[in-house]
């Protein structure tokens, strides 16, 4: 059961967990990424590509589900404007045993940083606006899985 979504609405983590867990899987690992309000950040905007973003997420989801034989996988990414504390991304991975669920979860969050058509723009209280640059470390973490 693979569920992938790209949405401008807030991510309802509790509802997504309920839906994902309906099967009563042995082990579920999750990752929640939220907007950090560091340095006076007031808004995070995520630009996306209407076709490639969802295709990229779906591709990653199927790769992970196959590689680790997952029983269920939920991968939801928010796009558009967000404020500090709001959820950007939710990954839920389930399998009979823990090692596969944990590895799939980590793989997905690493790959999301480098393989999916999403671009972050930060706005700060003092009026500064900047597009986030890719980080060297993200590339390294993503390549561990090759």
């Amino acid at each position, binding site marked *: 059961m693979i569920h992938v979504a790209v949405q401008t609405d807030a991510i309802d983590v509790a509802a997504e967990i309920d839906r994902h867990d309906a099967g009563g899987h042995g082990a579920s690992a999750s990752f929640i990424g939220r907007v950090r309000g560091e340095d006076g950040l007031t808004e995070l905007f995520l*630009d*996306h*590509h209407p*076709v490639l973003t969802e295709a990229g997420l779906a591709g990653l989801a199927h790769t992970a589900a196959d590689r680790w034989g997952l029983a269920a996988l939920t991968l939801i990414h928010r796009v558009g404007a967000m404020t500090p504390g709001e959820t950007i991304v939710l990954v839920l991975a389930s399998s009979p045993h823990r090692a596969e669920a944990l590895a799939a979860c980590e793989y997905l969050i690493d790959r*999301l940083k480098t393989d999916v*058509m999403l671009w972050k723009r930060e706005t700060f209280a003092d009026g500064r606006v900047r*597009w986030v640059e890719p980080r060297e470390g993200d590339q390294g973490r993503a390549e561990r899985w090759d």
Partner: protein
Amino acid sequence: MALTVSYFAWVRERMGVSEEVIEPPAGVTTMADLVGWLAARDARGALAFAEPARIRGAIDGVMAAPDAALGREIALFPPVTGG
């Protein structure tokens, strides 16, 4: 041949449009050619495509390398920063 080109993130901001239909000359056959042509076309292109190494692209909805042959719909954008 008319191409639909869309721009994302700071490439879009520098180009001032999110999408346009263009008709490049016959010699523009790859994505790298297109980026070079856009950079030479006007001031906003010169700004957006000053560093071609920082530009990524997709052709007809699929990620493509700079030397890939152009299709009908081209997307140009910076390296991604999702997650």
